[in-house]
């Protein structure tokens, strides 16, 4: 039993640095760091609109966002809005209805902001009978 507890404690100590890699500290500023967020959504005959929110608080100095999509069938539109609901980017990928072409359609948007608008950024995903996947990755750099 004692051995098991020792192994558990040792494992916890070893995994702790791995979690910390998400937000590495700047030795001169204990509150600084980088936060990475990754999210994947799989679409299977999906037509329901989804909204992904990313909160940008006042300490955020830079915000980098990448949305990658690939669609085998159907259509997918991605729109990115800042907290004031200004559209910062959009794209669509897909195949036309009743198309005989079987080909993957891929789309990617890369956005970078220094001192981004503070508040909730939203990514609206509008699929139309879509089969495919979406990868959202964001990087926020804190003061």
């Amino acid at each position: 039993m004692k051995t098991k507890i020792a192994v558990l404690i040792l494992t916890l100590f070893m995994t702790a640095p791995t979690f910390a890699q998400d937000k590495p500290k700047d030795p001169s500023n204990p509150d600084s760091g980088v936060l990475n967020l990754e999210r994947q959504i799989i679409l299977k005959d999906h037509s329901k609109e989804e909204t992904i929110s990313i909160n940008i608080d006042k300490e955020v100095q830079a915000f980098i966002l990448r949305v990658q999509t690939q669609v085998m069938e159907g259509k997918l539109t991605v729109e990115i809005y800042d907290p004031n609901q200004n559209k910062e980017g959009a794209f669509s990928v897909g195949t036309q209805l009743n198309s005989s072409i079987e080909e993957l359609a891929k789309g990617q948007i890369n956005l970078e902001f220094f001192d981004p608008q503070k508040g909730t950024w939203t990514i609206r995903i509008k699929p139309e009978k879509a089969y495919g996947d979406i990868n959202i990755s964001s990087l926020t750099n804190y003061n």
Partner: protein
Amino acid sequence: MKPNCVLIILICLSTASTSYTQRIESGHLRGTIEIDSSWSSNIYLSYLPTFEDIYTMSPEMIIGETKIDSDGNFSFDLSFLPEAQKLYRLHITKKGDSRSSLVIGGKNENYLLVIANKNSVINLKAGSVYPPFRRVSYEKDQINSSLQRITDLIYNRDSIASLSDVYKRRFIDNNLKQELLAIADTTSHALISMYAVYQSGFETDYKNNATFYESLAEKWSSENSVYFKKFQSRLPQVKSHDNTFSYLIIALISLGVGLILGKYIPLKEQKVKSLSVQERKILRELRKGARNKDISEKFNIGISTVKSHVSSILSKMNVKSRKELMRYK
């Protein structure tokens, strides 16, 4: 006699050679691009039926495909395109990627917009490795050079804005909007004008600048293109009444008034009418005695832009100084 025969043969050969050159020169898009080995050696041409399709990718949009040789040269035959000038997109893909891949923003941005028809002779040079279509120049191609100018303005805005704070970004956005509207106002090409308006985000700006957009819609009212119709459909519609007779009376009265005014309208007013919307706004300020700096601040445009407008106004009004303009009442 012999020299005459030689001369005739020379003329015939020269004519044949010219017509042959014209034949092979007609309807093509040739270019040179600098790409590294991570990119595939294929380049694709897609048709964009609306401006919204610029950021849309589907396999059905691709209408042409060709190889990029080891020196970066490629060539598309455009003779199968329609007579009307339309918007197209060139794109390349990374090795192993689907041919229907679009990347917007960042160093791997992979597309370029071009305006073409079946007779277009387009020769371009893309002089940047990342993103490959960042620095594009055209050989004697005013339309695509203007299109590229808009792309450059947007790219510069994005580059500066990504390094600026919120307030500076607003200022940069406003400057970009003014520059795009100035292009829309002054270009002689409808598609360029519509594209500049589209990129300026006119739908959110309509209320602040309704007169400008209405004037623009009027200016291109003879246009039949889908691009223009789409723009027109997004302007708030004037309510229509089923009263043909009233319209006929109004049309007849307008015709009569038009004829009278056409005969007696002062030359000065005709000159004012030749000014663009932005120039008319600046003329109003000049008449009030505003300085370049005041105008620059009022319309949020650069001093150099103001100077350029003032010079154009003086030329169109056929006057030598601002003082003379102030006498135009």
